[in-house]
C-alpha cells in the first residue's frame, strides 16, 4: 500500500513542470502587454494556448496518479 501511495505522489510531481512553465509564460505575457498594450488581445490568446498545453502535462500526471491509486 505505502509503495503505491509513493508512486502516486511521484506521478503528481509533473505539476512542478507545469507550474514553472505557466509561470514563465505569464511573466512573458505581462512583459509583452506592458510593452505593447494595444496587442493585448493577441497576446492573451497565445498565452491561453500556451497555458493549456503546459497544463496538460500536470493533468496527465494527476490522471496517472488516480489510476495508480484506484485501479491498481
Amino acid at each position, binding site marked *: 500500500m505505502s509503495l503505491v501511495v509513493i508512486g502516486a505522489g511521484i506521478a503528481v510531481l509533473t505539476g512542478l513542470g507545469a507550474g514553472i512553465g505557466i509561470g514563465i509564460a505569464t511573466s512573458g505575457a505581462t512583459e509583452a502587454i506592458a510593452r505593447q498594450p494595444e496587442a493585448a488581445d493577441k497576446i492573451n490568446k497565445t498565452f*491561453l*494556448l500556451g497555458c*493549456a498545453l503546459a497544463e496538460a502535462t500536470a*493533468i*496527465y500526471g494527476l*490522471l496517472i496518479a488516480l489510476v495508480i491509486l484506484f485501479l491498481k
Partner: protein
Amino acid sequence: MSLSEKLMEHLQVKGFMIGDFSIPQSVVVTWGIMAFLTIAGFLLTRNLQVVPATKRQIYVETAVTGIYAILEGILGKEGKRYVPYLATVLLYLGISNIIGIFGVTPPTKDLNTTAALAIMSIILIEFAGIRQKGIKGFLKSFAEPLPLLVPLNIMEIFIRPLSLCMRLFGNVLGAFILMELIKAVVPIGVPVLFSLYFDLFDGCLQAYIFVFLTALFIKEAIE
C-alpha cells in the same frame, strides 16, 4: 481510508435503470441542459425586430456578436461556417461546467462525455481539411513540411482528441477531488470561495480552451 472510498464511489459512472437499459447520469443531465438551452433560445429570440426595441434583444445581440467575433477572429473568413457548431459546444460546456454550483453532477465529470466531444471535434477538423483541400491535398498535407514527418502527423490525429478529452476531464475531476478534500478539512465557509474559483472561473476557462483549441486546429487544417 473512508475518504478514498468516497472519492472512488463518485468516480464510478452512475446510471438510472429503465427496463433493461441503464441511462448514465451524464446523459440525463445533458438532456436537462439541452431543454434549458432550447427553451432559452426560443424565449430570447421571439419577436425580433430590425431595429431593436427591447433590452432583451440588445443583450442577446451583444452576446451573440461577441461570441461570433471571438471565434471568427481565430477561424478567419473561410472558417466562418464552423462558428455555429463551436458556439454551441461553448454554450454546452460552459453550462455543464458551471452546473456543479447548483449541486448537479457536471456531465463533463464523465469521461464518456468529453471523449464524445473530442471525437466530434477531430472529425470536424479532418472534414474541414478535406473540404478545403480535396482528398489529394488532404493526403498531401500529411507530408508537410517534410515527408519524414508523416508518422508524426498521423499520430497527431489520435493525440489531439486524446489530449482534448483528457484535459477537460482531468480539470473537472481534479477540481472535484480538491473540493472534496477542502470540504473534508473545513466544512463551512471556505469551500464557497474555492467553489467560485473551481466551478465558475476554471469551468468557463476550460470550456473556452476546448473550443479555442478546436478552432485553432480547424484553422490550421484549412490553411
